[in-house]
């Protein structure tokens, strides 16, 4: 099973770029890397997903090196409202049903300060 490891917590200041790195040494060939964001008392929200190289959307960028054993979520110019828990996930192929089961770890608690 592909397990992920990410820092427990990070601190930043408004306007800074934040990079959260996740390691996933046992990632399988067909697995994608997905990041979710969760605010207190809410369900996780999808941020970005990628397979290799770089993916960018209106919220974040995701950098994946060639060996795919790690990935980095980059949040440009964070604000106070980016304070949340960020989860890195790698899909695990299920034995049946043709779908992927995602495994959530403990996540990274990002605190953005004024």
């Amino acid at each position, binding site marked *: 099973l592909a397990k992920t490891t990410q820092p427990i917590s990070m601190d930043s200041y408004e306007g800074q770029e934040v990079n959260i790195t996740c390691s996933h040494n046992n990632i399988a060939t067909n697995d994608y890397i997905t990041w979710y964001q969760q605010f207190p008392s809410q369900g996780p929200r999808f941020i970005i*997903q990628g397979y290799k190289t770089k993916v960018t959307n209106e919220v974040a960028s995701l950098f994946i090196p060639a060996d795919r054993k790690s990935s980095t979520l980059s949040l440009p110019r964070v604000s106070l409202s980016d304070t949340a828990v960020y989860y890195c996930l790698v899909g695990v192929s299920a034995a049946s049903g043709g779908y992927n*089961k995602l495994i*959530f770890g403990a996540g990274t608690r990002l605190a953005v300060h004024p």
Partner: protein
Amino acid sequence: DVKVTQSSRYLVKRTGEKVFLECVQDMDHENMFWYRQDPGLGLRLIYFSYDVKMKEKGDIPEGYSVSREKKERFSLILESASTNQTSMYLCASSPSPGRGDQETQYFGPGTRLLVL
């Protein structure tokens, strides 16, 4: 916009009671999931379903059962609630992945259950 709704935001039950948590999604997704979330443990998968009347055990199914009679609805049942089932329960849904794709899970707001 995908919408996943859960029947209650907060619930208080007594030990031994039977508890039903309902989840409804409006995007015709094949897959539905129930997680519980506890401080320091992240999200842990209880059960999931990839089709009507189909269910699969997740990582921590003990003490729980599920029901999926209709595609849009996935129920989590605590047959006899215990205090160690006090937790935040999150429901999610996702479409079946296409070739080479990996599905995105869409989460409901969660139900915070307290068992006394």
